């Protein structure tokens, strides 16, 4: 509802302007002043430029740049479009049709920084504003593949040095995941992880029409600020870049994520098939709990898994991946706690027996959980599905060994921190 109110408020603010002025967006302009509605350098769209445009040899067509676009004017027609690349000393007329569409071609020198200027003049003699469409144009001799690799290396550098602002400079506004989630995930990554070291090995680059996909394997190590533990993972993943007027920009990432691990579900566009089932780094942004979890088949279903050993009166919490020493009795603070002859569960945990092994179980049952304060018939070789409130959250437990005389318990588990039943 709040969003609806915001939209209504914006409409109220803008509608009077629309009714008062036919061209309400023309702040401080005359309708006889020409303007550019599109401007392209070969396949690169440069609708709005601030800092300039950088091209690579891949962006050239037979060594040339073809400038295409359209100029329009409220009153009259476009009579002339002129371009200069030598700081205004010489202006050349572009080919122009009666709709204001124009083309102009030139062969740039590699590495030369051109001051590109373009102006449109209407048939009534009015020109676009001075310096309105001036910007620097540079053609680097580096090819797209090398530029994509170089950009990826710079992003790794920014990430390992916790430079969020520098990192986001390489992210496209048309990033296919949630760009706000990515920026927030970086804050959480840098908040909960330190000593970040990543060794990425690019195995191949494939490109098509300005899109570059980098396939890589990585070795990564981080230290959890919360637990002080070092965590290492190795997997394969993919990042995608697109050539833009401002250089190579990140447009998509696949899971397992190399950046922004604290919010994989909202950032990753898809999952790298080669990584499914491998243990990868997961980070809960709310608790700061970092662990290694199995990469699921969808980015939002990255469950954690592991083997845990507990002695008498020790409890284990799936969500925080932590062990606590507790007193005897059924008042359990963690999720599961062994004692002599019984394995207690927390109040609010329901459980039921399932078929072993849990490695071949991909989802927890939807119903049938018994709200008892212990696991029924807990012994080695038995498997259980657990439903835990609040949430509910789901876990699968396989008892590897349980010494009823001493209370020593070893179990394998899968846990789904996203709240789903699929693992």
């Amino acid at each position, binding site marked *: 509802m709040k*969003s609806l109110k*915001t939209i209504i408020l914006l409409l109220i603010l803008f509608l009077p302007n629309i009714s008062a002025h036919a061209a309400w*967006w023309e*702040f401080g*302009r005359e309708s006889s002043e020409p*303007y550019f*509605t599109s401007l392209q350098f070969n396949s690169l769209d440069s*609708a709005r430029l*601030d800092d300039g445009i950088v091209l690579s040899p891949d962006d050239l067509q037979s060594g040339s740049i073809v400038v295409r676009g*359209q100029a*329009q004017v409220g009153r009259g027609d476009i009579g002339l479009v002129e371009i200069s690349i030598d700081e205004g000393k010489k202006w050349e007329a572009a080919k122009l049709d009666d709709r204001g569409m124009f083309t102009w071609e030139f062969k740039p020198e590699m590495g030369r920084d051109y001051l590109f200027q373009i102006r449109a003049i209407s048939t009534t003699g009015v020109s676009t*504003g001075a310096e*309105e469409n001036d910007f620097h144009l540079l053609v680097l001799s580096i090819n797209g593949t090398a530029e994509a690799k170089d950009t990826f290396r710079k992003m790794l550098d920014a990430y390992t*040095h*916790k*430079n*969020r*602002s*520098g990192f986001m400079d390489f992210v496209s*506004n048309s990033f*296919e*995941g*949630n760009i*706000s*989630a990515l920026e*927030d995930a970086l*804050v959480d990554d*840098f*908040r909960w992880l*330190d*000593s970040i070291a990543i060794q990425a*090995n690019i*195995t191949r680059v*494939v490109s*098509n029409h300005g*899109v570059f*996909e980098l396939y890589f*394997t990585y070795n990564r190590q981080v230290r959890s*600020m*919360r637990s*002080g533990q*070092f965590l290492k993972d190795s997997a394969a993943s*993919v990042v995608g870049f697109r050539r833009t007027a401002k250089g190579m920009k990140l447009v998509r990432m*696949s899971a397992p994520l190399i950046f922004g691990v604290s919010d994989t579900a*909202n950032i*990753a*566009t*898809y999952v790298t*098939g*080669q990584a499914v*089932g491998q243990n990868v780094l997961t980070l809960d942004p*709310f608790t700061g709990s970092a662990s290694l979890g199995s990469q699921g088949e969808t*980015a*939002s279903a990255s469950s954690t898994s592991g083997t845990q050993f507990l002695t008498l009166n020790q409890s284990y919490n799936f969500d925080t991946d932590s062990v606590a020493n507790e007193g005897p009795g059924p008042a359990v603070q963690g999720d599961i706690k062994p004692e002599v002859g019984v394995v207690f569960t927390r109040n609010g945990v329901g459980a039921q027996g399932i*078929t072993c092994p849990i*490695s071949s179980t*991909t989802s927890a049952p939807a119903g049938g959980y018994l709200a008892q304060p212990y696991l029924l018939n807990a012994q080695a070789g038995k498997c259980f599905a657990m439903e835990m409130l*609040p949430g509910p959250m789901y876990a699968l437990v396989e008892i590897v060994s349980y010494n009823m005389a001493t209370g020593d318990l070893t179990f394998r588990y899968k846990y789904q921190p996203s*709240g789903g*039943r699929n693992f």
Partner: protein
Amino acid sequence: MPVCRNITLASAVFLLSFSSAIAETTYQVDNRTALLNYTITGPGKAQSFYDPKARIYHESDIQILDLPLGNWNGSLLTTVRYTDSPQYDPNYTSIQNLAIHLTDPQNNIDAGDVFANLSSYSMMKGIKGVGFQHNFGDDRNYVRTTYGTFDGQWAYLFLNSRVDEPMDRFGGGIRVQGATDDLTVGANFAQVADRAGDSKRGTSNVYRQILPAFDWEYRSAGMVLSGEHAFSRTRLLPYASTSQSLRGSANRIVFRGRFRAFSLNGNVEQVTSNFITLGGGATPDRVRYNARADWRLDRQWQLFGNYDQFYNNLSKQLSTRTRYETTEAGIIRRHLFGSRASALTISARSRSKLTDDGSSTGRSHRLRLKYKDRAFNNALNYTLDYERLLNKDKSGVSNTYLSNNLYHLSVGHRGYNIGEWKLSGDLDFGRQELQNPTTAKFDVSDMLRVSLRANGSDGNELGASYDLGSNRVTVAGSGSRQNRGLFYFTVAPKILHGGSIRSEYSLNDYRFDDVTRNYREGLLQVLINWKLKK
């Protein structure tokens, strides 16, 4: 491994046989050889990330370009690798990339590593296989088809014993695109299937799917309207359960417009929870609306706004639906103080995460100030960035208020010319003050980075950098400090034909509140880039 060696040898023979026959064709071999030596010391050295041995890593890019084959223009690109470091590859030799391209005025044929590029929902993936495109007149009207294996590495095709190899997956499709001056439409059909009988399947699910998709783009003066609509039909065969048939759809409409000084981008997308794309990309179970607008009042002032909303759990598989909303507005003032490069950005953002059942809410308010400019005749560029975040999280009946401050200063110098050398440098300083939810006090992280370079006109380079990272955490025993120093020099002797030799030594010192974890890494690397070209 012997197979890979033979292929490498075959590539070389192929290269040599053509090099003597056709003069106008370009033959090029770019070689990268790295000699690595890591030394790890300290009580916590087992924590080190590196393999504490001397290693070699070599890659060769072999390229044959503009090879005339009748009416076709051919090229071959392959990258082969040798390494004795298991951190990079369990195999000593491997083919990293192998691609063959044939083109004539109307046709393209690709084989080997091919980018299967249909549409973003249906297929956009690097595969190993074949691709063909026939253009009707220009490259905006074409039919494109592709098929191959999704194997990530060539070794998976040759060496079936690789432990990290996943189940075989094959797929491809066809795309037909037609275009006029204003309108472009594309029809796509993708098909992907796993090989259920593959010995590498393990306990994985098996998928078989078909995915038709239709995409379009309409361009008019100052605006682009585009969209894609896809439907997936997937047969899912779980390892220990009965098969399921999953059907889902995905729809996206994107608007990008520029009306003189006003620019508007909008995006609406819905992806159902059972929409699965094995070759393309989509985040299932989402509805998303996004709009970005900016309004350039004149050359000095610009207003911008961003609204983003999405919510998940369309099929209510999870316990509750969650809605995320972000609203941002700001202003940019350029050309301050008479400087053409200056820009001051002030923005405010509000972000919320709300569960439908009210069990938890999170709100984050951000104020951001950013100023960038150049000084000393544009030789020095600098950026100042400050953010203040106020977060309020509610879970059940308890509220948590946390605030964060983020500072960042970045300074770069274009360089002084001293004789044939150009000296340049960069400085980065950042600080994070993050309120710890356990102690309610601020955890402070500092980052400092200084780098200096001297570049010679002959391609030689000398440089050094120093990094300092410090984390002062209010939870006892969790703090850490890292110091990293790097020194390197690069020479570019003419005998290497544009190649170079870079030698670098870096020392990384990691210290922790728990001193038993301390360790130090000394990394010596010699990187040789050398080229052969004809």
